[in-house]
């Protein structure tokens, strides 16, 4: 794996604590404090998790006529990692048209992950026609009809949010007041030194408003997150790797496993981007996130599909 990292488009987020001092790390080249070594909520074991996004099962246009095939290649890549992720986070748009057979295919393919456990949030393509009914009947069946939720793993507090239901004309989508109130309550009892990972489909930062690439009420989320020393926000939707750092909050958007989209404003619309043969695998892939105790480093590696022999 390591020999491939240099040619991958890598986002590296490194932070470390040692002794009792506040230790600084680099996120996207920007120094930031992560917390203190005395933090007793520190992760108690090294672990890794993986993010996949925008599988768009059912899409079959020229940008990628075989999205199930590229997803399978991503799954094979993750399954071949020497350290298996503790779980997989899927940041939405499992399907392209919310059809039952697309959700069924997702359930079937995701079963091929060796990691087994998965956590989902919905994308707007998972909410067509019958709302989230198909999502909750399919891959999201373990969520008991909760579009947003949280859980703790290895001392990290994970929060899954839904910003794909509340759409208003001419505006970016929103989380809505009910979800914001829930988030406020969910975070209220946590120590400021608890590492937080938030995941949602649409970026929680404004990437490009003319294309709706942002969340209208994300500012409210940031208000509740600012007090934490380490916050990582993961999203999909825009089908490309981008990042932004705001204080202690680092935002990262991920590649799709299905098809790329243009850079913000680089085309007349954000539609699927057809790229030359052999290039597609460079623009699709998964993300590996490592949480390491002791030196408390957090590293992200965006892993394009291995293309040298297969595209």
């Amino acid at each position, binding site marked *: 794996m390591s020999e491939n990292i240099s040619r991958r488009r890598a986002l590296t987020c490194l932070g470390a604590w040692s002794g009792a001092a506040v230790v600084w790390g680099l996120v996207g080249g920007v120094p930031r404090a992560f917390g203190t070594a005395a933090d007793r909520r520190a992760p108690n074991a090294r672990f890794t998790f993986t993010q996949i996004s925008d599988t768009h099962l059912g899409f079959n246009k020229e940008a990628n006529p075989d999205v199930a095939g590229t997803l399978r290649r991503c799954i094979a890549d993750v399954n071949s990692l020497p350290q298996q992720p503790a779980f997989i986070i899927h940041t939405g748009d499992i399907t392209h048209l919310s059809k039952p057979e697309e959700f069924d295919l997702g359930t079937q393919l995701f079963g091929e992950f060796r990691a087994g456990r998965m956590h989902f949030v919905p994308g707007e*393509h998972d909410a*067509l026609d019958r709302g989230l009914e198909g999502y909750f009947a399919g891959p999201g069946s373990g969520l008991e009809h909760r579009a947003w939720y949280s859980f703790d793993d290895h001392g990290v507090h994970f929060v899954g949010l839904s910003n794909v239901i509340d759409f208003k004309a*001419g505006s970016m989508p929103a989380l809505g007041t009910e979800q914001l109130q829930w988030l406020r309550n969910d975070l209220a009892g946590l120590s400021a030194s608890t590492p937080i990972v938030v995941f949602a489909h649409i970026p929680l930062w404004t990437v490009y408003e003319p294309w*709706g690439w942002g969340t209208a009420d994300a500012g409210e989320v940031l208000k509740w997150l600012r007090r934490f020393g380490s916050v990582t926000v993961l999203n999909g939707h825009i089908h490309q790797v981008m990042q932004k750092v705001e204080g202690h909050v680092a935002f990262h958007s991920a590649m799709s496993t299905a098809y790329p989209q243009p850079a913000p404003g680089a085309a007349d619309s954000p539609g699927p981007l057809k790229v030359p043969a052999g290039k597609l695998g460079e623009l699709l892939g998964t993300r590996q996130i490592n949480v390491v105790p002791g030196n408390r480093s957090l590293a992200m590696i965006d892993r394009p599909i291995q293309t040298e022999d297969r595209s």
Partner: protein
Amino acid sequence: MSRAWILRCLFTMALAGWHTARANEPVVITIDRFQFAPDEITIEPGTTIEWINRDQTVHNIVSSQAKIASPGLDTADRFSFMFDHPGDFTYLCGLHPHMKGIIHVKERTS
């Protein structure tokens, strides 16, 4: 009826954004490059609008005013709706809310 009069009438209708459908034929709005074309249109009551998706991704048509909630429209899919009553009806794509349109439905006065 003079040719000049007919041309003047057609010019006036075009300025007002009027679209007149032939019997049993809908007025077509295309969805192309994440835009409705035309995005503003004036029709008479009883006219059917047909949206056709020319994009490589899915869109839909949502209007609370007209009580429209189309299914997701994949490439080349069509969705029709007849506007019975006068009014101004805004709509959007529920997946891409920056895509907006408006349909004015009113009786022709002249």
